[in-house]
């Protein structure tokens, strides 16, 4: 297998980050949003369909998966968002 291809099974199971296209709010499956009732490890598929962005009200369908790393201190801020 070429080094730049990916294992499709692990691509499906890897924990994802998503970003609200309305305001930029982010959701990280690894971190969840404990203050909004979503425990760490909650998969996007398990977030209720009627859940909306806590900051701007954009529906769940208005989030997009991103592959972007955190700035220093970002994970702590993301979990408390």
């Amino acid at each position: 297998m070429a080094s730049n291809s990916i294992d499709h099974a692990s691509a499906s199971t890897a924990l994802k980050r998503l970003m609200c296209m309305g305001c930029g709010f982010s959701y990280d499956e690894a971190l969840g949003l404990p203050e909004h009732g979503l425990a760490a490890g909650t998969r996007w598929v398990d977030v209720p369909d009627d859940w909306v962005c806590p900051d701007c009200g954009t529906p769940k369908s208005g989030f997009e998966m991103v592959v972007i790393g955190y700035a220093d201190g970002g994970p702590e801020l993301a979990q408390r968002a």
Partner: protein
Amino acid sequence: MLKTAHSPVPVAPAIPAPATPRSFVLRANERGHDLIRSDGTRSSYVAGHPDSFITRESSFNFHDYQSGRPGFGPIRVFGDETFHGAGCGYNMHPHHNFVICAFVLQGELTHINTAGRGMVDQLRAGDYYVFSAGSGGKHSELSIDQEDMHAIYIWFMPGQLFLPPSYHRAHFDFRTRRDRIAQLVGDADCALPIPNDIRISRLVTDGGKKHVYQPRSSSHGTYVFVIEGALRCGDTVLNRRDSLGISGVDNIEVETTSDASDVLFVEVMMIDEEIIKQWEREHPGH
């Protein structure tokens, strides 16, 4: 080099293949159109007297417009917006992570934002800002006067999530920087900094001039937007508010065909992540 009969079959070095040229043309009238009134259901979102309204032409999917292109590289919003009526604009609202740029074309934009210690800025034609919302900030954008305020808004994905919020602004002097492709945002001397691999340049020139835009690599894409005037790029003619997205090329030659042509070049690294493509296949329409 001499080869023996037992030389192994040469193996291609592990370097990326040259990017394939790709392009699309988006005509002015193919963009998404929104008219958002300051009264009724959107009154908390849009500021102004009851007869105020915002018109927004979106090059890419944004809010209610979801039938177009999702974006271009890290660009997610490219809005050609006009605030009509005294006091019109967006009330204070939150942002995170997105890097939002505005280029004011007409009128006066009063921009209140909370980055750093916060500030109230007033921008007129030629002024522009880069607001990186990072770990979170709020802003409000208003046209206080009767005169319409017209601006181009561009939103980008950041290079990192939860960066410290920042705000920078500058002025593009189209008299002293005429007849050349001037970089306004990016890594050039005096360009406003932006936390991603992005360059925004602007060309104000007369008709009949040829200019070459050179992206830093063929893996970069360039979104060429004609604010005013007209140009020819290869066989394609772009008129006012038409645009071209192109990647996989070493340079882009444009010939302006109208006086007072005013063109933006937005250069970005194209996103080509198989894990994202797979997620999009599994979540059609998200």
